[in-house]
């Protein structure tokens, strides 16, 4: 088991290097730092000196890969690739283009993101599984049919509509909770209720439909027929057999997104003015702050790969058959 985990972690290293090279190419090779400087300074008042000083301020005034003016190891370390890209491996994100410490910002902003993402995930899971079980219990009846119709319609509505419509209805018409904002500590709850509810409702369509398919697939299997033939009640069959076995794909699907919860949701956070990592990323995109976007790309990939490793491990834990292969 340990060897398996170590192998999985080792396998992640070349992938992270690949991501690193990809971001490096995307941010520094396709467009040179000169282009970035010109973009930031505006096209009109660009002088070569202004570009140089912008690059010096942000540490982009080095060669990309090889510095022939330095001596010894500094030939490779005093380059953009080493300073900006390789340092990401130490989780040293450096300064943003506006001069703030990215690592500190991330550590501050991940908590509001988690405060929304974690409840959305777990309440959503509870709601979706209960609803899907209900549909599975009433399968091939009108409840099943109209539920599926409802779910497909809910899937077809843009997430933007849930947010705008929910904000309008709950905050503006009914005045139940503030439209947007954030506070520290427990005072944050009144700001969190609406985004969490909207997040859960927005996920019902796709989530419940997927779980319904899983349950129905499981219900048609032989061991379920055996259980029924033994004379077990439908309730027992559903909860003791079907639910337990269908939970395997559901759980692994959840484990894969667990680490990514840190990243928050771009849209929800920006609509509700929550100072999480999602709105951090959006602000960076709108301000064209390349350093932050680069850091977030790398962080996101690390978390995704972590999710994959956790999935593999959880698979071996819940399904012993996988361990053998």
């Amino acid at each position: 088991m340990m060897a398996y985990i170590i192998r999985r972690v080792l396998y992640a290293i070349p992938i992270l290097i690949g991501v690193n090279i990809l971001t490096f190419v995307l941010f520094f090779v396709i467009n040179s730092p000169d282009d970035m400087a010109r973009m930031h300074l505006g096209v009109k008042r660009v002088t070569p000196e202004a570009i140089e000083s912008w690059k010096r301020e942000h540490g982009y005034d080095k060669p990309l890969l090889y510095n022939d003016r330095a001596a010894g190891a500094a030939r490779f370390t005093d380059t953009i690739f080493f300073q900006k890209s390789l340092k990401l491996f130490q989780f040293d994100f450096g300064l943003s283009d506006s001069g703030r410490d990215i690592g500190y910002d991330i550590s501050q902003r991940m908590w509001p993101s988690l405060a929304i993402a974690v409840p959305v995930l777990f309440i959503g899971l509870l709601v979706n599984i209960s609803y899907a079980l209900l549909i599975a219990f009433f399968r091939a009846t009108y409840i099943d049919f109209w539920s599926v119709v409802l779910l497909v319609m809910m899937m077809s509505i843009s997430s933007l509509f849930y947010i705008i419509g929910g904000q309008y209805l709950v905050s503006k018409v009914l005045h139940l909770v503030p439209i947007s904002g954030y506070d520290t500590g427990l005072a944050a709850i009144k700001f969190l209720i609406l985004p969490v509810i909207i997040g859960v409702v927005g996920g019902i369509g796709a989530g419940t439909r997927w779980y319904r398919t899983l349950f129905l697939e499981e219900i048609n299997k032989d061991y379920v027929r055996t259980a029924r033939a033994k004379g077990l009640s439908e309730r027992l069959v559903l909860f003791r057999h079907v639910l337990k076995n269908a939970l395997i794909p559901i759980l692994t699907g959840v484990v894969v997104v667990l680490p990514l919860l840190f990243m928050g949701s771009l849209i929800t956070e920006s609509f509700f003015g929550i100072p999480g990592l999602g709105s951090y990323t959006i602000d960076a995109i709108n301000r064209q702050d390349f350093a932050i976007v680069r850091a977030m790309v790398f962080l996101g990939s690390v978390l995704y790969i972590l999710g994959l490793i956790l999935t593999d491990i959880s698979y071996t834990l819940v399904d012993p058959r996988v361990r053998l292969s």
Partner: protein
Amino acid sequence: MTVQPVILWTDALVFLLVALAVLFAWMARGREHLRAPWRYVARSRVGMASLVVLAVYMAIGLLDSLHYHPLLPKAGDNGHGPRHSAEIVSLFDAIVAPLRERSEKTYSAPLAWRLYAKESIERPDGTVYRDYPRLKYGGAHLKEPAREWGPDIRRRMALGLVKAAVIWAVVAASLALLLARRDGIPLSVMFGRLARGETAIPWRTVLATLGLVLAATLVVIELAAGYHVLGTDKVGEDVLYQALKSIRTGLVIGTLTTLVMLPAAILLGIMAGYFRGWVDDVIQYLYTTLSSVPGVLLIAAAILMLQVYMNNHQGAFNSLTERADLRLLFLCIILGITSWTSLCRYLRGEALKLREVDYVQAAVNFGVGHFTIIGRHILPNVLHIVLITVVLDFSGLVLAEAVLSYVNIGVDPSMNSWGNMINSARLEMARDPIVWWSLAAAMIFMFVLVLCANLFADVVRDAFDPRLRNSRD
């Protein structure tokens, strides 16, 4: 020559896609195993109903993909022959020219005859008072709008319904006539079968859907002749026109994204599964790396870089339209790069299974070349997976466009798209009284398209994957 056609990049690809679809249909015509799933689709009521609606969207999208430089009005004929405007418009623009040209000053509500906000108006005698000014076009034909408005709207709607009923009756009658002649039965019997829904292909459902679509279209056409059916936006542009123009953007994103990713996904996926060994390792490494970058961030990074590039190379684009078009294409490619990995993984698994099948092993032992085997035996056996993926991805991509445009990393802000409409509508919700029509229009148009695409995709998946069909019932 009256017009000078322009073929934008996305236009070319859209028509390539249409050509591919026609070619595929022609190939499938003579092959029973390919026709059978489509027959299943054709016999599904949900499938045919959503297909009718999708066809309307596609027709608008295709008309909107025929671009040209319009002829300039003959200002001064100085011997240069006809002169063309630098502007690029589409055939669809020409058809709905009144919608495009009749713009008001600012916001106006759907079907309104006066502006949304009060303004100072000067009477002929020089005194000034504050009131809602009349619109330039919306309801301009009414002499006493306060009294005539209601009856006029009702009259136009009734007229639209009557016209729709006439067209629908003609279509229904000719369909019955055609079917009766084909089956060699009297027309009256055919009418009875149609009315009771006893035909193999659910023509009754098709006709019902068609009736609804016709009624909606003709009522809107009648109303649009005198009003702004969905109101106007901040700069007075007709919202209905914007929503209709956005159809093409949505369709292009939904279809071209999968089209541009298909070659890579199919080739790499099959090669990884078929050759195994180091080829498999390299390809797996490639797609794991790409898929481990969160999609939104990769798109954001790529679009940011594109903006930098376009800013620094402004001379490379002839017009705003071409620039917006290239950005759209680029967005499709980037979306394709982020979404090809799942299909590739799927195809690899399938190819792994197929290479062990007896007839493939036999072909290997006969000394058939690898690429012949892939083309002859493996590719045809994974095409249904490709098709299912293409259809299933469509609705997700249409929805993704709206979200990306909202974050400003979607299509060009100058391009009509539902995402851009929602993005600009976001501030309008805070006005008092609220301006809801832009948002509602974008949402409804998007909802209908995505809903039909979802329903159709389900039918197609059931048709091509019988294993799923059995376990789902």
